[in-house]
């Protein structure tokens, strides 16, 4: 198991390398590529939505097909684009930031990725197999339980499998951050991106099981004739709504907190100042995570829960504005008195502040229950969540990618193209979504395939669509940027931004084992401290020694493949019980792999210290 011969590998070898890798840096790249692909796909679906709505009574797509596009847009963007892209950044950065050689469970890390991909592929296979899910990304019963065809079954199985992957990833990061920190890296010295990863992983741990159960019940109702959500059998559809939102609301913080983490890294670096109010930032992160579990019913104000429940959840929801506000002001005061450099990463971070503030404020407006009776399920809500998601999460991902690209790929993304992307995307974004606030109150519900002429909704929708085209343009420029940079870009050193945290203390390209010697951490912004003391490198915490590394394995890939097969079996066994064979084969593969894994000892291998100097593991 030597990785020394990294030079001229054949394509096959590279492929095998990625299929079997357990290296967090490579898994990060896998997440990036697949998440990026799904982002383009989700964006394409968004374009179809906007084209359909460009004018009243349009029929660019049919009504039923529109619902499929809309459902897949939401589902793809949330589960298959935003989350994996966030995981890409976490995988690429978190172990480096805490001075670790690897994550706690490299094998599970790989498994988590492959499960996500298997789930995503199952979900999207529905396009070719009789139609995609069409009950909205929230899949409210009984529409979802009665939706004809197999669309919603693909939703159920796809999300179930990728959800399992997410849960695994969450546990992995939790343990990594608890157990793998370098000496001296106390909790209150962890960079904020690591902190947000930690909190988000805990949210995943507590939120995803509710979705798991919800999906199981939905699956039982659709495929095995149970009656959880079927009023005629005594069931109750409100159960699904609760289960979905007990998961769903924490989910939106799962998306935004890592973005907060990204900005908390970028703003200090490019204003050359320490993060203002670090302790308060940590505290606010934890508080947001905590409160995030007590507000889910704000998505259900119009369901009929009664004024008492609505009021309680309304007030609890508003409370989240406080810790979020603490963050906003701390960022502003990080900039205050700084020496601010504006590059692409910084442009995204800076524009995030007003954009997200708008989105958050509309959130608080939504939280006012009696006002939400008007807002709910209109384009006002659509505007709210795209402001926080695109203006927060997507900007965060773009910012993070520009910032960490040299760490991940050793090159800086082209600044000119980067700025072009930023400006078109930014302007397009506001054009698309600002006007939607008004559309909503003017009487345009969301999830509408079309709207009638002569209801005062035409101009607003037209502007919105124009904006979406600008965003598409910006995104395409970004893709070009990636290609151009990888072909022509110049290699840079390990610390191109004058960084403050540990990931910049490593030479480029990052060695397989990350740190030759585990660094000794002496405070917050560990690397910055050393630089201020006139050193170029971290002080090591240990002598050079053999480095223990985990073995690569193809098992994660095969396990995911097993579930992929079983997924189809579950879906089609209602039509023909012969498909049960696929269930058994798939589950057999899965259990077989688990068996092999537990029976085969895997002690990993060592890179010997003599080889380290010869460049082993690069």
């Amino acid at each position, binding site marked *: 198991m030597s990785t020394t011969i990294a030079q001229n590998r054949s394509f096959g070898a590279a492929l095998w390398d990625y299929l079997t890798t357990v290296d967090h840096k490579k898994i990060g790249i896998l997440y990036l590529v697949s998440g990026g692909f799904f982002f383009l796909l989700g964006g394409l679906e968004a374009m179809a939505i906007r084209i359909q709505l460009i004018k009243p009574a349009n029929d660019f797509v049919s009504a039923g097909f529109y619902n499929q596009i809309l459902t897949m847009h939401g589902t793809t963007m949330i589960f298959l684009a935003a989350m994996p892209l966030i995981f890409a950044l976490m995988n690429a950065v978190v172990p480096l930031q805490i001075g670790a050689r690897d994550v706690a469970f490299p094998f599970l890390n790989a498994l988590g990725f492959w499960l996500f991909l298997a789930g995503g592929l199952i979900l999207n296979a529905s396009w070719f197999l009789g139609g995609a899910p069409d009950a*909205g990304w929230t899949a409210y019963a009984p529409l979802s339980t009665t939706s004809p065809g197999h669309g919603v079954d693909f939703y159920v199985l796809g999300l179930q499998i990728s959800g399992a992957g997410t849960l695994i990833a969450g546990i992995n990061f939790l343990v990594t951050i608890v157990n793998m920190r370098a000496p001296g890296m106390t909790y209150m010295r962890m960079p904020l991106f690591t902190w947000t990863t930690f909190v988000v992983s805990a949210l995943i741990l507590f939120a995803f099981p509710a979705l798991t159960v919800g999906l199981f019940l939905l699956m039982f109702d659709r495929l095995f004739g149970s009656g959880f959500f079927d009023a005629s059998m005594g069931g109750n559809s409100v159960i699904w709504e609760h289960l979905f939102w007990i998961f769903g609301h924490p989910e939106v913080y799962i998306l935004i907190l890592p973005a907060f983490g990204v900005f908390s890294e970028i703003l200090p670096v490019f204003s050359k100042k320490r993060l203002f109010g670090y302790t308060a930032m940590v505290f606010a992160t934890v508080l947001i995570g905590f409160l995030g579990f007590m507000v889910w019913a704000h998505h259900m104000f119009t369901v009929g829960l009664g004024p008492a429940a609505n009021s309680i959840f*309304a007030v609890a929801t508003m409370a989240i504005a406080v810790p979020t506000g603490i963050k906003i*002001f701390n960022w502003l005061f990080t900039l205050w008195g700084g020496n601010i450099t504006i590059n692409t990463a910084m442009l995204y971070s800076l524009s995030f502040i007003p954009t997200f503030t708008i989105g958050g404020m509309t959130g608080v407006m939504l939280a006012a229950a009696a006002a939400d009776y008007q807002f709910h399920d209109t384009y006002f809500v659509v505007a709210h969540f795209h402001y926080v998601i695109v203006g927060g999460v997507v900007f965060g991902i773009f910012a993070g990618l520009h910032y960490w690209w040299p760490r991940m790929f050793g090159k800086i993304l082209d600044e000119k193209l980067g700025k072009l992307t930023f400006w078109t995307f930014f302007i397009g974004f506001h054009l698309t979504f*600002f006007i939607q606030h008004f559309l909503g109150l003017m009487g345009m*519900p969301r999830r509408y395939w079309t709207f009638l002429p002569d209801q005062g909704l035409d101009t607003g929708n037209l502007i919105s669509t124009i904006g979406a085209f600008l965003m598409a343009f910006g995104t395409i420029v970004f893709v070009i940027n990636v290609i151009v940079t990888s072909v022509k870009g110049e290699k840079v050193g390990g610390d191109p931004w004058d960084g403050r945290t540990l990931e910049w203390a490593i030479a480029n390209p990052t060695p397989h084992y990350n740190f030759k010697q585990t660094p000794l951490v002496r405070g917050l912004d560990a690397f910055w401290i050393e630089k201020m003391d006139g050193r170029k490198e971290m002080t090591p915490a240990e002598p050079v020694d053999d480095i223990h590394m985990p073995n690569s394995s193809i098992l994660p890939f095969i396990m995911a493949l097993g579930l992929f097969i079983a997924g189809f079996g579950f879906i089609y066994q209602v039509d023909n019980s012969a498909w049960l064979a696929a269930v058994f084969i798939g589950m057999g593969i899965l259990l077989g792999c688990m068996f092999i894994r537990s029976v085969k000892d895997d002690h990993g291998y060592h890179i010997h210290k003599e080889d380290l100097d010869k460049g082993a593991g690069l």
Partner: protein
Amino acid sequence: MKGWMGKIRALFLLSSLALILSGCGRENLTAFLPKGYGAEVSLNLIIISLAVMIFVFIVVMIIYTVVLVKYRRKKGQEDYIPKQTEGNKALEIIWTVIPILLLVIIAVPTVSATFDLADESEKEDTLNIKVTGNQYWWHFSYEDEEIQTSQDLYIPVGKRIYLNMVSSDVLHSFWVPSITGKMDTNPENENTMYIEAYEEGVYWGKCAELCGPSHSLMDFKIVAVSEEEYNQWVTDMQNFDAEAVPETASAQEGQELFQNNCISCHALGSSPVAVAPNLTDFGNRTKIAGVLDFDKETLVGWISNPEEFKEGNKMTNAEYLKNGSLSEEEISKIADYLLQLKPTTITPESATN
């Protein structure tokens, strides 16, 4: 810096221009011009919260602008390393406490409005109407008056009316933006909400919960008329005679055909059948099936092929469509019959002051 702000300003100008062009949306549809109690309460709350938000936004933007103007890197200062401030207790307390106070300003009216809109103290003494959401049409049953109607909900103006809402299939949501906010219809629990229209008028209603392909085509209307007109309407509707012979020959034949082909789903009069819209006062509608133009041609088109107009609607299952047993001519006769179903002189046109 200039470019920055300039672009944002241009953006705002463009959006506000668009807004002015389209006004605040169409009257009797938009939530910006409330014509009923619920809508007014909600709008007040929206305005309060919006005011707080604008204040917050201004504060944030002032700091933001100062920061960007003052602290950008200056020529010759590339290597300047600013003071590494850790934080500031006083500031942090300020920006914790002030938002809390601001939130209280929003929370108090929120709670009071929420309870206000859920008030059921007058339920027993006033008109109660049962609302049923169906894929993709609305049914209204005036239980005490024994009146059944669909699509158009007639109410007396200036009076609080209770709606008791359920769904017969999937979730729907009853929304008349200029009268009141939404309330979902669920298949297993009955929801109660009251409405009160301030002025006579025809108000647009929309279904606001994804309910299938034709979710966006599930419009309905509230027709608010004066108290006397409403009473007139009630009497006329109660006196409706389904057997009454229409005037024209064509309509008479239409009636026959209707009885044979349509009555299995559609009902006339106070019959409680609710598989399909009640057509008692169909001739007074302003839209067919909620969204289509009201004219004979469209009606014939609808009866011949409803799927073409509303994807996934349940009329497509009709027997006569499956075996194609009705000719164009016969459908036209049915249309004649339906169009003359005007048991009352109270129509949406009466809903003007």
